[in-house]
């Protein structure tokens, strides 16, 4: 197709006997210009809003920029402080990792379990699927975080329910040992979107594999362990990576439930919340930029690690 177009241009140029250079420019434009015209908004956005700011942020991370005075170069001081002398950084990293380690496996296990139940040809599949998906759609909003704050308050709904069984629950959100769990429960409650991806993956597994296996007398458990799980590993891997990155970036629930403090005693101080406090509460913009790059480093290391280990457990057909 491109060849047809090119020769048409060449013929046109020749007929009008334009100077060769101008003809070549016109040909280059016909060939590449349209692509760049369509790409223009994105290109502008990429340079002005992504690449430029990313470079600037890297520079700022070596300064003491505070939005008022002009930035002064401080070398690696920000990074040194992060690594050695910032207990809040250590606390926020710990909280975030605990949150990732607790919420992602539970969420994925739930999503997989429900997807397998739904995939057994039961009636009302679309109905159940819709109900289980609804929390994923609503869960990111402030309204749900507000609701959670009430549910797990000392006089909240959860404790009212527990009271009916004669159990007196603590104030979950204001107890440093339990507060992170309220956020984990909120995350697991939103298992709907990985569930849908699991369902789509399960549909890809040919049913004749199970037929053959059951003819050979393989038990249900064995079929799951030997057929379903291996064939589903690419989907599990995908969901695990996506959900982990999302969990590292979580912000709104912790902000709303702790009233922006990350308390009690930093027990819900997500990394992103600490970054926000430093940048927009204390206006330590240079320091917050360094925190942002550490986050990139952590997510990047995690992703690289996942991809490197994936070849030992993720099963690909070809």
């Amino acid at each position, binding site marked *: 197709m491109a060849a047809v177009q090119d020769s048409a241009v060449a013929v046109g140029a020749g007929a009008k006997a334009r100077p060769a250079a101008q003809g070549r420019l016109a040909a280059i434009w016909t060939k590449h210009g349209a692509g760049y015209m369509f790409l223009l908004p994105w290109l502008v956005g990429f340079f002005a809003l992504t690449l430029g700011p990313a470079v600037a942020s890297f520079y700022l991370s070596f300064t003491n920029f505070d939005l008022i005075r002009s930035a002064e170069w401080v070398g690696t001081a920000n990074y040194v402080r992060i690594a050695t002398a910032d207990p809040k950084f250590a606390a926020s990293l710990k909280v975030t990792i605990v949150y990732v380690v607790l919420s992602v496996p539970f969420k994925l296990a739930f999503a997989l379990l429900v997807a397998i139940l739904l995939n057994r040809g039961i009636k009302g599949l679309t109905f159940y699927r819709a109900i289980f998906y609804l929390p994923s759609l609503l869960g990111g909003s402030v309204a749900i975080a507000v609701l959670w704050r009430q549910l797990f308050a000392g006089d909240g709904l959860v404790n009212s329910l527990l009271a009916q069984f004669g159990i007196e629950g603590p104030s979950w959100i204001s107890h440093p040992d339990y507060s992170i769990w309220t956020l984990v429960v909120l995350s697991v409650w939103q298992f709907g979107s990985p569930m849908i991806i699991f369902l789509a993956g399960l549909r890809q597994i040919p049913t004749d594999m199970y037929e053959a296996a059951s003819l050979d007398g393989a038990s249900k458990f064995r079929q799951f362990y030997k057929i379903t799980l291996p064939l589903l590993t690419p989907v599990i891997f995908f969901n695990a990576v996506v959900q982990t990155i999302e969990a590292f970036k979580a912000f709104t629930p912790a902000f709303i439930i702790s009233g922006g403090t990350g308390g009690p005693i930093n027990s819900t101080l997500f990394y992103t919340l600490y970054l926000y406090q430093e940048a927009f509460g204390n206006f330590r913009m240079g320091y917050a*930029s360094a925190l942002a790059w550490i986050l990139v480093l952590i997510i990047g290391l995690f992703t690289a690690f996942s991809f490197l280990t994936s070849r030992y457990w993720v099963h690909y057909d070809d």
Partner: protein
Amino acid sequence: MTDATISTVTAPPPATISGRSPLSSTLIHAALIAASIAMLYPLLWMVSASVRPEDEIFSSTSLWPSSVDFASYVRGWFGLDVSFGRFTWNSLVIAVLTVIGNVIACSLAAYAFARLRFAGRNFWFAIMLGTMMIPYHVTLIPQYVLFLDLGWVNTILPLVVPKFLASDAFFIFLMVQFFRGIPRELDEAAMMDGCGAWRIYWKIMLPLSLPVLATAAIFSFIWTWDDFFGPLIYLNDMNTYTIQLGLRTFVDSSSTSDWGGLFAMSTLSLVPVFFFFLFFQRLLIEGIATTGMKR
């Protein structure tokens, strides 16, 4: 294909292939129904709390209010210095402009990536995919400084203008996937007839891509409507607040004793999202299943 036909015609339905008794089917339904109730209970409880008389909110765990009373909605609506009508309007303006920006800018870029040939296409495509991986925290602070210098803080511009520059690379990716599935013969035939890239984009690609454009539009709307971080950073004047910022102010203000009003406004803020869930569920679920969307 023939295998599937044979097995559906001759073999018993899949349910019995795996040798499942009616009992275990009942058990599965029981488990799924129990799980559904447990998942929906907090939501329904909030909606029911929003129409309860004030003194009954905390005392009851049941979902049926003893009497229905919309006083909480009135109190909540006017619960802050600026009414929730204003917040709702602000949210709506930002969300609608975001939808327009995303659909236009992302479809332009997606068309270039999916159909046009130009030097550096694969390079830029890889860069575009790369931008999807970068956490926005890295660009946050310089972007803020830029918008502050432009005098855009406390306006909707920092939230809307980037969308017209296709800043949501995810939607480009979604559209590229869809555009690639449209038969090439269509645009090749149009090109033979002398149509340029613009006409092909406008007259062929866009009309054939309504499902993916709708999916992108709906997700844009929902994510923008729910967005908390962007407005938190850029909108500090209460008159410019979105509904999410309004809720946050409500929950943090001294009037937090008014849980009724808070639940009423929370319920209200979920209505548009619920509407899309009700009427466009299929598009949303297919969108997630095919692209593995994050939320």
